């Protein structure tokens, strides 16, 4: 298969671009997660702002990716960071907010009130409740949100090539310009592979993060 030959012949470049791609998505997630989780927790405590924050994040995600990348350029050009990985990462952080905030919010809201009551009955204060009860129980769903964000970001990062961020999108961009189908297909396959691997990896993480008790409970209720 000529595409396979292409990937084998350019193995170093394949690795380099894949690494660039992973780097962009990874950094974006690293930044987006604390922000998203904290916001998610905050809006569970301040119900009235919940719908607004969720709406705001929803609007962010509705903005077409190339438009958001494009908008980063003039805004960041002021600080001379208009091109390259920085605007790409920032845009990806913004895109990731909705899945993360929404999942955090839903997860914490779904902690059975009876458990919260029991905790309060045991004398747990607000912070202790959060740390030892609500967050551990919510973690699997939060990770599910991260998983959605990660897979989404991998796809969107392919478009970031057009603002100079590099990554596997380069194969698609150059493949189009040079009318080089093997390159395009390589780019497409590599990104998809990356998405599938990350999806699987995060599913594993989800399972690891589920407290033993819940796993048992799920098994019993089947």
């Amino acid at each position, binding site marked *: 298969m000529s595409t396979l030959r292409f990937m084998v012949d350019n193995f170093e470049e394949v690795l380099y671009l894949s690494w660039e791609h992973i780097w962009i998505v990874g950094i974006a997630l690293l930044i987006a997660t604390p922000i998203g989780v904290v916001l998610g927790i905050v809006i569970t405590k301040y119900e009235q702002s919940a719908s607004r924050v969720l709406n705001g994040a929803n609007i962010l995600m*509705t*903005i077409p990716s190339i438009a958001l990348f494009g*908008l980063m350029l003039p805004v960041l050009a002021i600080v001379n960071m208009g091109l390259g990985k920085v605007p790409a990462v920032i845009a990806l952080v913004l895109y990731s907010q909705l899945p993360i905030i929404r999942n955090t919010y839903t997860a914490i809201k779904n902690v059975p009130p009876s458990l919260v009551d029991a905790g309060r009955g045991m004398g747990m204060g607000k912070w202790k409740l959060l740390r030892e009860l609500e967050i551990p129980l919510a973690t699997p769903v939060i990770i599910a949100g991260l998983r959605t964000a990660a897979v989404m970001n991998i796809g969107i990062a*392919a478009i970031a090539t057009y603002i100079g961020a590099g990554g596997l999108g380069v194969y698609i961009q150059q493949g189009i310009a040079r009318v080089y189908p093997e390159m395009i297909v390589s780019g497409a396959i590599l990104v998809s592979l990356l998405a599938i691997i990350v999806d699987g990896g995060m599913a594993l993480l989800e399972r690891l993060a589920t407290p033993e008790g819940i796993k048992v409970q799920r098994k019993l209720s089947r």
Partner: protein
Amino acid sequence: MTKLLIKLYRVILAVTILALGVVAERTGLMELLSDPYEYPVIMELFIQHLYMVTVSMLFATVIGVTAGILLTRKRLRRYAGICMYIIGLGQTIPSLAVLALAMSFLGIGTKPAIFALTIYSILPIARNTLAGITAVPPELIDAGKGMGMPPIRILMEVEIPNAMTVILTGFRVALIINIGTAALAYVIGAGGLGDLIFTGISLMQTDKLLAGAIPVTLLALFADFLSELMGLLLVSKGLRLSD
């Protein structure tokens, strides 16, 4: 504390809108839009964009809903999982790649773009149709059978109306992604608002960039709103009340 947050939110909103106005003025967006030579070009691109989105969504909806329904029928139900998985794999391919691949096989221009957009929009619709119909409470279907309804009537009068909310959500998601992906179609020679965005990026002309980015965003937001409206029309009152 909450009141303070709400006030803060309102202030941020107002400042953002004002800032956008300033940006529009300073980057020459206003001049660009009122330039008699440029304006018809922008309108033409807008219409091109709308055309691609409309045609592809039409195909995608017909194919997607049909596929979703077929996979819930008794004989084909076991293939549902596999089919959804395969279509799902297609979704992991980034939109840009789907466009580029369509170009390699079908050439340059609007036709391959519409083809790519159609394929990309089928999944959310098909998957939600399948999920929505599967989730219809079996008691309702039983009731229909009990009333002597033939399967086709059950489909039209029980299953689809009850699944409508979920199907509409799939439609909405597909539509928004479609509008965004159509902006990339410029790259394979299909025009559309992406023309302005990519030109703006490559020449660092912010007015062009905004002239493309803002209409696309507004279009997506409008599509979101439109879907809500469709929900009002297509979802029966009784179901809506229970939401």
